[in-house]
Each structure stands twice: as structure tokens, then as C-alpha cells.
């Protein structure tokens, strides 16, 4: 029969990203690239004060500026739009109302106070300078621990104090284990606030169609469907009257997994003014008024035996929530406590989480969201145990690993780890780095007064969330994901995914899955996403879920399409469907690839309906929704080797090895890309990045002049490898890898620096490891000035 070209299997191969040509040649369309006829421009006036009573706002001069169409304040919007939706639900959670524009009080620097709509972005910005606001400044609650104390300045008078929630999970077994412990190690850890800093700041365009009474919103978001549901609810519109489009999105890192004030404000103004309205955030606004990540102070204690066996762990976490609750603000620390034991078999854990309002931007998900904090805790503690007992940090880890035979493993926090082989990834990383030799070299160099440090991190995380019950009950979405596979009459394939990739590369990896399963070429597959009018209900991309959940939904939909293809082919080839296989652009008899029917003929039959197949429903299309029955638990081993200049506190990288295990890999190049970016951000937190608020609540690292996102030269040369421990949870055997690099790297780097300085008596240094802090720690340890 036909001799179609051989189409090789692509899963597991390094297919180049199909997204990249348009991205790197500047041909992609982001929110700010949109130009609609009659479009107006919005500019937002933000509070300069961290905490102040709002007095009179005089907008008359701004309104008088030629080109200004409208100026609005909180009072103008009260009862008309807002509050900002928040699905958080916890026992006794204090839930403040977040207005679209501040009413009565401002509670963080950057809080929107007024907004100008004008005929150009320039006029809109000029008009901001003409608005006069009377502020009556109040003392600000900035430090999370102090803010939790009685007597601290209170953000919400109606709540009486700043403690939003207190979630203690006691465990008598923990107390017992601590009583019996040979040793107890303790550490205070600061997870400083960091800024997600997507390359593309947030932006929104809204267009109200008066005739259709429908709203179209373009937003730089990770969750177009969820945003649509929330907008429909907020504006009391049926969902069919709201269309949300996430065009090209230049990164999100969790910070665009939210509904923000401007996402309500821009549509509201478009509906009121009857014209399209655009708002694009400037970098400074992004830094001050897009959610921050981390922001925890933790007191951690670990009980162990003299041989290094860990017996119990407990922690008290102060979660710096910021001024308002965004989507997951209140939930992030929950991940931290559940996973604080990392990949170690610690029989008993206990924790207390205290969520505290502060006069700062809200914290929320940021690459890892609660798990980097957990891994950092576990990995720093493992090193402390080793130091306390004079053991090698690797030996302590090996002693306490959950063994691979123990999976599925029920954790003391109530999770079920799917699969793992922690020893395998560690062994590989140790081999690559040449651990034993390095330790000898370190000892030699110490004699010469050089401070080399080796930091090991055997991290674990949770991703691919997960059964829907694990998500906040009021969230208008679940833990599932969806996919449609639609063969077109010309034989090409359109995939509609509910995931909303914004840099992860699913336009490539999903095409690979389709190509392998249907036997069509990669160029014959189009992956569409991010438009609620095109794509069936979906959830979005966050928490390393895109491929694991969206990919599984895709496989399920492909199964349905394949079944139909085989059924049609079965008529045409006169062979039972079970005897048929797809590949190389053909349907062929199992074991006899030469007995093949071109797939094109099946497509022709399905759309032309002239093959005389009885009861055939035209078309080749299927949709599947996948609800996972468990989460996924990727892991890996990172090893950083650093040299510390004891005279100045400067840290230099010598080596960086990462062996990650995310199960099966669809495209190792995409996996590496994710690990590269993840490590960059993890190293960033360890060494460079900090959202520094001064004591009056000013964000003093408020521009890229002072907020140090690592540049390429500041990142070590990465030596990457992987192990493959497939998950039994999904048919692809894949786990997520989007956050792994961030989670594994931060503790590896900090452990390395502490390891270097251990002979001097340095035990801990708060992140980021800025040279002055390292130098002061050395001075303090030497007993000198601190």
C-alpha cells in the first residue's frame, strides 16, 4: 500500500521548542501588543505609604487635563465593583475585604488609590501627578514576628490584631520522641520575601461589546478559565458572556495564578465607558504590587539518635501574608508544614502555622510555593544533624531516606508518596561531582586557609495537584485538567488544552505526544490554549501540573480518537480494531507494518462519509477530563561547591551538579530548560534576591537597580543529569519538573556556604547570602566585631 515517510517516535527526544522562533524574533503577541480601535489607557495611582488613613482625594486637576476621560477613586467604585475574590477557607480565618481601589485606609506601598483613564498612556500617566491625596500616616506593621504581637500597629481594626489564622497541629508522639531524643538540633530560618519578576509584567485589556452585552478580557494570566469564572461572578454575567484570553504570557512563576484588582478595574471601566481599556504594568508597579513569594520565619527542631536517625520534627511557622489575602496567600505555609520532613523517614511531625497580616504586598505562590521552604527546612536540618554528631551530611541522608521499597509511602502528614528512589539520584550526583575526592581536596585547601564548601540537597516536592478535594473548597476549579483532540479534514490535528502554558513548552511536548500516538508529523499538530471561547473548560498551568495533568487528559482524549480511527480502519481493512496499530502516518496490522492503510484515508472516510461505513458519526474528535487520584512527588539531588573569600564574605561557585527525577521525560531538553530556570531562581533566593522593606514599610529594593535577579554570569555552570522513576499515578509515568530546580537548589547553596565556614564555627546565615552578611557571620564566629 502507501509508502508514507517514517515518522520517528519523539517522546524522550530533544525536540526543539516550536514556540521559540516567534518568541526570539519578536513576533509573539503579548497583552501590551494589542491595539483596538478607540482604545483608552489606564494608569493607577498607588500609595506611597505603607499604612495610612485616606483623607480627601482631589481629582479635579487630573480631570481637567486634556485627554483625560475618567478619574476614579475607591469611593466611586464602592458597591459597583469588587471586592477582589478570594477562595481561601480555613477554620477561624480572618478574611479582610480587598477593594479594587483603597477605601478608608491604605495598607501597603503600592496599593491602588485612584485610577485615570485617558486617550493615551502618556496623558494617563501625567494625570497621576495631578491627583492630590491627603494621607494621615500610621505606624506600620512590617516585621512578621513583631506584627503578630499584641500592641503592634493593627491593619484591620475590626479584627483587633494581625493574626489571620493560627493552625496548630499537635502530636503527642512528637513530644514523646523529643523527650527520648539523644540530641535535639534547632534552627531559626528566615525565608526572605522574593519577587517573582516575570519578564512580562501583568497587563489587562478589556473590551465590552454593548450589542452582545459580552466582555472580552485579555490578561497576562496563568488561569484564563478560572479568571473567567471569577469575572462572571463579580460582574454578575453568565459565563458565556465572558471570554478570557491569555495571549502570549511572558512568565508567571505563580504570581499570575491569581485574580488581581486591575483584572476587575479594567473590565469595569470598559463596561462603564463603552470603550476598550488597556493597562500595562510598569516594572516598579510589578515589584510593588504583584504578589511576592516566600516570606516565612520558621523555628525548627529535630530530635535524633546518636547514630543520626531522625525521630521527630516540629516547627513553628510565621507566614508573612502581607496586607490582603490573594488566592493562596493563606495556604502556602500548609505545604511547608506537610512536607517539612522532606525525603526522610521521620515517624512523627508537629507544627504550628501562624498567618500574620503585615503592611506589605501579599505573598502567594512563587515557583515552588511552600515546598522550597519545606525542602530548605529538611535539608538545612539534615546538615545540622550531621554537624551536631560529627557525621558526613551524605551519611545522615542515607540513614534516613525513605527506602525505595517503602512506596507508596504514607507520610506522617497524611500524604501518600507515589514513587521514589532517593538513593539513586544522590548516588549519581555524588559520582558526577566526585564527592570523596572533593572532601579530601576541601581538607587540603582548608589547611591553606581556603574555605571550600560542599552543599548537598536531596529534595522532594509535591506537584501535579491533585485530587480536587485538596484545593480550596471555594475555588471555582478543581485539580483536574482537560484536553480535546480534533482531527481536521486535511489530516492535521488540533489540540485544545485546558492547561495554559506560558513558557513551559507544551506546544512542543503535547505535539510530541500526539505525534507518537497518532503517527502524524509534529508539524501537523497545533496546540491551542489560553482562550476560553476556543478551549473547553480547563484549569491552568501552575504547580508543575501542565504535562502531568494536561498531558494525561490529552492521552485520554487521544485514546478515544484512536479507538474511532481503528474502528473506521477496521471496516476499511477488514480486520478487528484490536489488531490495528497507528504509526508512521498509517494504520497497520499489528506485527505487519507493510499491511497498512494511510491515516489520511481514515480521515477522508470520517469527514467525507463516502466509505460506506454504517452508523458512522462524522468527524474525529474527543474531549477528556482527567481527575488524578494522587499528587506526584518528584525528587532529586543537588550538590553545590563554593569557595568563600573570608576577607570579604564573597561567595564563588566552583561546581554545581543536579540530578533530578521527574519520572519519564517527554522532552529532555524541556526538562533541562525548566531545571536551568528553576536553579537560577533558587540560586537567586540563596544568594541575591530580597524584597527589602524598611521599618516604615517602604520597599527599598523596589527597582532592578537594587533587586538582584541573577544574570547569566552569576549562575554556576550547571552539570545536569537525571534518574527516571516513573509514577504509577498517570499513564505517561511523568511527574512535574517546573519547580524542582528552585526547590533543590536553594538549600544546596546555603549548605555549601555554611559547610565552607563550619570550621570557623558559623552555623547559620540568613538568606540572601550577601557578602556583608557572610563577612559578619565570619567576624562573629571569630569572636571579633559583629
Amino acid at each position: 500500500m502507501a509508502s508514507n515517510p517514517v515518522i520517528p517516535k519523539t517522546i524522550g527526544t530533544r525536540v526543539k521548542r516550536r514556540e521559540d522562533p516567534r518568541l526570539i524574533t519578536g513576533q509573539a503577541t503579548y497583552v501590551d501588543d494589542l491595539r483596538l480601535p478607540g482604545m483608552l489607557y489606564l494608569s493607577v495611582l498607588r500609595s506611597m505609604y505603607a499604612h495610612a488613613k485616606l483623607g480627601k482625594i482631589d481629582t479635579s486637576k487630573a480631570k481637567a487635563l486634556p485627554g483625560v476621560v475618567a478619574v476614579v477613586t475607591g469611593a466611586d467604585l464602592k458597591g459597583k465593583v469588587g471586592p477582589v475574590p478570594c477562595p481561601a477557607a480555613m477554620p477561624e480565618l480572618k478574611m479582610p475585604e480587598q477593594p479594587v481601589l483603597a477605601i478608608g485606609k491604605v495598607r501597603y506601598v503600592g496599593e491602588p488609590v485612584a485610577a485615570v483613564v485617558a486617550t493615551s498612556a502618556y496623558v494617563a500617566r501625567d494625570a497621576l501627578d495631578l491627583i492630590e491625596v491627603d494621607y494621615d500616616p500610621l505606624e506600620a506593621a512590617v516585621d512578621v514576628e513583631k506584627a503578630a504581637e499584641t500592641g503592634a500597629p493593627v491593619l484591620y481594626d475590626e479584627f483587633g490584631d494581625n493574626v489571620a489564622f493560627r493552625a496548630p497541629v499537635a502530636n503527642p508522639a512528637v513530644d514523646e520522641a523529643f523527650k527520648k531524643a539523644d540530641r535535639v538540633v534547632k534552627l531559626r530560618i528566615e525565608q526572605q520575601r522574593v519577587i517573582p519578576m516575570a519578564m512580562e509584567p501583568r497587563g489587562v485589556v478589556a473590551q465590552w461589546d454593548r450589542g452582545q452585552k459580552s466582555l472580552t478580557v485579555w490578561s497576562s494570566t496563568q488561569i484564563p478559565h478560572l479568571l473567567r469564572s471569577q469575572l462572571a461572578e463579580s460582574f454578575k454575567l453568565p459565563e458565556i458572556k465572558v471570554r478570557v484570553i491569555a495571549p502570549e504570557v511572558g512568565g508567571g512563576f505563580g504570581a499570575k495564578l491569581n485574580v488581581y484588582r486591575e483584572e476587575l478595574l479594567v473590565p469595569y471601566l470598559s463596561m462603564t465607558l463603552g470603550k476598550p481599556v488597556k493597562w500595562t504594568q510598569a516594572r516598579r508597579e510589578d515589584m510593588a504590587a504583584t504578589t511576592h513569594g516566600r516570606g516565612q520565619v520558621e523555628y525548627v527542631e529535630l530530635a535524633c539518635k546518636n547514630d543520626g536517625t531522625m525521630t521527630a520534627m516540629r516547627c513553628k511557622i510565621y507566614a508573612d501574608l502581607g496586607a490582603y489575602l490573594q488566592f493562596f496567600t493563606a495556604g502556602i505555609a500548609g505545604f511547608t508544614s506537610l512536607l517539612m520532613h522532606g525525603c526522610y523517614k521521620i515517624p512523627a511531625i508537629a507544627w504550628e502555622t501562624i498567618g500574620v497580616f503585615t503592611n506589605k504586598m501579599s505573598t502567594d505562590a512563587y515557583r515552588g510555593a511552600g515546598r522550597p521552604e519545606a525542602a530548605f527546612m529538611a535539608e538545612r536540618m539534615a546538615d545540622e544533624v550531621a554537624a551536631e554528631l560529627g557525621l558526613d551530611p551524605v551519611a545522615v541522608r542515607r540513614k534516613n531516606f525513605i527506602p525505595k521499597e517503602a512506596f507508596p509511602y504514607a507520610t506522617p502528614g497524611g500524604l501518600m508518596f507515589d514513587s521514589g528512589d532517593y538513593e539513586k539520584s544522590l548516588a549519581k550526583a555524588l559520582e558526577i561531582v566526585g564527592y570523596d575526592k572533593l572532601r579530601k581536596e576541601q581538607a587540603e585547601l582548608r589547611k591553606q586557609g581556603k574555605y571550600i564548601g560542599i552543599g548537598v540537597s536531596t529534595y522532594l516536592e509535591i506537584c501535579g495537584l491533585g485530587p480536587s478535594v485538596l484545593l480550596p473548597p471555594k475555588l471555582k476549579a478543581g485539580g483536574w485538567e482537560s484536553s480535546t483532540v480534533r482531527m481536521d479534514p486535511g489530516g492535521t490535528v488540533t489540540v485544545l488544552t485546558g492547561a495554559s502554558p506560558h513558557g513551559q513548552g507544551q506546544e512542543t511536548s503535547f505535539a510530541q505526544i500526539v505525534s507518537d500516538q497518532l503517527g502524524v508529523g509534529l508539524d501537523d499538530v497545533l496546540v491551542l490554549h489560553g482562550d476560553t471561547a476556543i478551549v473547553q473548560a480547563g484549569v491552568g498551568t501552575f504547580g508543575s501540573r501542565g504535562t502531568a495533568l494536561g498531558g494525561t487528559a490529552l492521552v485520554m482524549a487521544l485514546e478515544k480518537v484512536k479507538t474511532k480511527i481503528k474502528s473506521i480502519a477496521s471496516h476499511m481493512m477488514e480486520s478487528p480494531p484490536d489488531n490495528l496499530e497507528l504509526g508512521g502516518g498509517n494504520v497497520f496490522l499489528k506485527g505487519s507494518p507493510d499491511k497498512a492503510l494511510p491515516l489520511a484515508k481514515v480521515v477522508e472516510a470520517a469527514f467525507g462519509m463516502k466509505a460506506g461505513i454504517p452508523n458512522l458519526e462524522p468527524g474525529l474528535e474527543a474531549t477528556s477530563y482527567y481527575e488524578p487520584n494522587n499528587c506526584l512527588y518528584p525528587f532529586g539531588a543537588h550538590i553545590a561547591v563554593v569557595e568563600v573569600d573570608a576577607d570579604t564574605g564573597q561567595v564563588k561557585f566552583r561546581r554545581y551538579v543536579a540530578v533530578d527525577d521527574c519520572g519519564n521525560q517527554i522532552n529532555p531538553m524541556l526538562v533541562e530548560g525548566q531545571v536551568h530556570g528553576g536553579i537560577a531562581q533558587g540560586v537567586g533566593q540563596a544568594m541575591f534576591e530580597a524584597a527589602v522593606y524598611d521599618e516604615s514599610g517602604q520597599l527599598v529594593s523596589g527597582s532592578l537597580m537594587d533587586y538582584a535577579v541573577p544574570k547569566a554570569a552569576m549562575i554556576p555552570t550547571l552539570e545536569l543529569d537525571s534518574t527516571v522513576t516513573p509514577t504509577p499515578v498517570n499513564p505517561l509515568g511523568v511527574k512535574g519538573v517546573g519547580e524542582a530546580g528552585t526547590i533543590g537548589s536553594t538549600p544546596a547553596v546555603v549548605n555549601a556556604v555554611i559547610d565552607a565556614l563550619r570550621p570557623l564555627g558559623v552555623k547559620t546565615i540568613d538568606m540572601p547570602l550577601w557578602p556583608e552578611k557572610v563577612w559578619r557571620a565570619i567576624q562573629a564566629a571569630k569572636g571579633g566585631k559583629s
Partner: protein
Amino acid sequence: MIPAPFEYHAPTSLDDALKLLGSLGDGAKLLAGGHSLLPALKLRLQSVDHLIDIGRVASLRYVREQDGKIAIGALSTHRAIESTALVRDKCPLLAECAAQIGDVQVRNRGTIGGSLSHADPAADYPAAILALEAEIDAASAKGKRTIAAADFFVDMLTTALKPGEIVTEVRVPVLAKGTGGTYLKVPQPASGFAVVGVAALVTLDGSGQVSRARIGITGAAVKGYRALDAEKALAGKKPDAAVVKSAAALATKGVETTGDIWASSEYRAHLTQVYAERAITAALTRARG
């Protein structure tokens, strides 16, 4: 980020630029590479009525040897200075300094005249310019004068330039044999500016004694300065490690170092001394050839 409105002027000759600057007065500001001015305008920390873009004044872009010195047109970019063979061969200290400014994109736009005129306390050039005892020419509608490097940096963001003056040329010496120099800096990881930068230039006589030492420091205080006490401590000495160390310890003597989130005043002073020691040591190695 949108600046407040301004009038834009783009003269193509120095004369036209000077006339504009003279006639527009206080509300006018010169735009060269724009790497300090434009962010300040966009952040609305600064506003101008008139922006005079001198980028098209081609006569201010040159690097040439002239009367035993290297003459550099004020609009020469950092990149041009770092990569011109003449500077690399005959005044490597300046090339090294230029090469450490910001990143390639910044160096491709930023100019030596613009950087000096702005007098950012953490800019790199002041250290090298002071150590090299450069001469800076300034022109105005009234004429031309030469300002010695030591007199140029007056205060934070303040130079000896008078209203209406434009820096036209910077002259640095051709370094003789027996002279070695280097510029070492601690870059602030976000901005690339110098947390501390030290330029050391030393000349050894036939007997291996320091006949001349010049140490320029930037980043440490409100303006670049010469570490005169440290220079004196080296002069006439056989510069062994102990001499260098004790000289470097004087690098912040009498200077009030500044502090920010990246480095407190105390740590900055410490860093200055450590880097002075390292820079002097490296300069000596080069001087010994």
C-alpha cells in the same frame, strides 16, 4: 514608565549644542548615552523642560594619541574605550575600568563624558580618572577650559562644571615602563555599580622603590576621591606585603563612607581597604613587568 513631557532637541554640532544649552538655561539637560538620565526621567525623579540630545555631535567621538597623551572625545562609549587598541596598550588601567562598567548593552550606549558629568558616587570612571590624574576639557558658549581630575568631582552628583558647559574631551597619560595599574571593583549584583572600586597606579624606580603611587577610589563615599594617605605611605618605600597592607589600611582615612542595603558604612570601609590592598598588589606586579 513614562517621563514627564519635554522638548527634544538634536543638534549635530558642538556649537549648536552649546548655543542651545546657553539659551535654554536651567530647564535644559544634555542627553548623551542616557543610561543615568533616562531612568531618572522615566521614574520621574527628574524632569526637564528641554532635552538636548548630543548623540549626533560626531566631532566628540574619537580616541587618539596627541602630544604624548591619549585624547578621548566625550561621546566615546565605554565599549569604544575598552576595545580601542590605543587605550588597551598605552593606558590599560582605563580600558580595564571601562570594561567593568555595567554590561555590554550599557557599555555600548554609555559615554565617558556623560558618566563623568553625572558624577554618580558609585560610577567606575572616577577611580581611574583620579588615579590617572586625567584632564577634562569643558566648553561653553564663552570658551573652553581644562579641569584637573582632582578638581572635577565636587560632591555627590555634583561636578565642577558650570551651567552651560559641556565636557568635550578627557585626556589620560600614556603609561611609561615601570608603571603598573589596575582597577578592581566589587560590583553591586543588581545594578552593576561599584559597591567599592579601587584604581591603583604605581611607578617603581630602578631600585624597586615606589617613586609614585596614585590611588583612586569610587563607591565608598559621596564622591570619588584619592586615597592620599595611602599614596604617601607607599611613596619611597620598597613595597613588600606589609607596606602594602598598612598603606591600604589608610584607604578610607578621614573619609566618611556611605551605607546602603548592600553594604553598611563599616563594611564598605573594610571592603575598600581589602580591595585597595589587592589593587596595589596587582599594580605592583604589573609595574615589575
